[in-house]
């Protein structure tokens, strides 16, 4: 499991964030004291840092700069300072992303996962094995017994999203929000069309029954 280190002084926010990240399959750890943050971070050696700028006794931008001198690990700054100058400064100090509070949690999650993917490029999996079929991330295809079917970008995203939440009902709104985040602003009808097409393609591989429609609730990949 990948470890995310949080430097956030608001205890409640930190706890909720930890719950959320744990639910989404990340291990979390927090620094509670900021006397010697740089040393602490390097000892913990996380896969990614979530960093607040206003910390008691320490400055996030300074920490970011110091860490960058010694390590390449991904840093996301989360702050309530909402202006371009702070953002520019943070990026110049080597932060990978700058997110302002209150943040969109799904966007944060997407940024975390894409950063982690990039930093583990070497060992990164190109395929996700879903037992009955294999999702090929590099080629946007779905494979089963030597057969390979190409999916459109949206179809692939939907299937991958469902596969990551296997055996859980996913509402149409949730899928749409997910697609919107990758800047494909589809509407309700387009989603229906996408699902139908996806189902037809699954049928070609004879695994159509995996994708079940729950009337009035959404979809589920069983």
């Amino acid at each position: 499991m990948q470890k995310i280190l949080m430097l956030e002084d608001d205890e409640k926010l930190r706890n909720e964030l930890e719950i959320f990240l744990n639910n989404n399959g990340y291990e979390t750890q927090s620094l509670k004291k900021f006397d010697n943050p740089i040393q602490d971070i390097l000892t913990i050696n996380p896969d990614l840092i979530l960093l607040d700028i206003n910390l008691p006794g320490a400055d996030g931008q300074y920490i970011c700069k110091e860490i960058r001198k010694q390590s390449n690990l991904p840093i996301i700054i989360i702050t309530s300072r909402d202006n371009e100058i702070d953002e520019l400064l943070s990026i110049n100090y080597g932060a990978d992303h700058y997110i302002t509070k209150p943040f969109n949690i799904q966007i944060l999650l997407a940024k975390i996962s894409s950063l982690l993917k990039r930093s583990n490029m070497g060992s990164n999996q190109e395929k996700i094995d879903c037992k009955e079929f294999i999702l090929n991330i590099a080629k946007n295809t779905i494979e089963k017994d030597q057969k390979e079917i190409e999916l459109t970008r949206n179809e692939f995203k939907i299937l991958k999203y469902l596969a990551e939440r296997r055996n859980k009902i996913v509402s149409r709104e949730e899928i749409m929000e997910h697609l919107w985040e990758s800047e494909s602003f589809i509407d309700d009808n387009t989603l229906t069309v996408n699902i139908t097409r996806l189902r037809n393609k699954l049928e070609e591989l004879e695994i159509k029954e995996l994708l079940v429609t729950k009337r009035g609730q959404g979809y589920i990949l069983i």
Partner: protein
Amino acid sequence: MKFTEFLKDKMLQIILIIFGLITIEIFLLAYHIGNFIKIYIPSIIIILYSITIIVEYLIKKQFYKNTTNLLNELEDKYLITEIIKTPNFTEGKKLIEILEQTNKSMIEKVNQYKYAQEDYKEYIELWIHEIKIPIATSKMIIENNKNQATKSIDEELNKVENYIEQALYYARSNTVEKDYYIKKSNLKEIVNESILKNKTTLIQEKILINTHDLNINVSTDSKWIVFILNQIIQNSVKYRKKEEQSEIEIYAKKAKENVTLYIKDNGIGIKKGEISRIFEKGFTGTNGRTASKKSTGIGLYLCKKLCDKLGIGIEINSIENKETEVKLIFPNGSHVDIK
């Protein structure tokens, strides 16, 4: 300054001199002095006195004429003391001294208010940063406890968030100093960010989003533009037609001197007579007064104000019951006229 007015001011002197001349004449008559002297003495006094009066009039007239002209040309009239030439007569010198002193005290007073406002703005900004933390925390709690009730709270929190943003930009829009950062920004990124900000409402209300031709760079502060777009999109959602499929179309056109960003919706539109007033502070219009849509009349007012500060044009066209089109006009190139 007319000559007659000037003479009127000198009336006492003139009367005394006439009185003096009469007494001199009486003495001269009493001592039987020759006619030549009788005429010569009063004439020389009258001529010399007239010369001094005319010279004085000309000097003063010149000074006041110059001053009035300068004053008319000046936009900030209080700067007159900085450019005026000190005259060489005492009265003028005294006048300038008085002007300088009143100016000084006025500037001190103005500064007092300026600092007070600055202080207040700083407090508002700080307060906004503080309040964002509990909002972020609340949103996280909602995310970890998803159900109908929390979803509803989330919608309300989004409204709170928007009001807070408005307050922040309102505070920023009122200060004279530079509070923004102009850099090259991509319109597509800006538009996408503002759409994502409203994603939950847009999906829930099943509003079609149609964006195209947005891959254009403009020089501006992208955060401010996201805020402005946010207000415009929220208006489109608020004033949509309930009985029809709502659609928001966003696209840009590049011209020689500028780039125009269009935000078009098929909502209820704005009454023809009201269009000219929509940027006024507190103006709600017929649309904003219907029971279901409480309008504060701040959103578009702020948009206009921020656009003016950034040197961006903003125009709204609308056909009632058909469509509303907002145009944001970005001047081309790195040269931006900043106010």
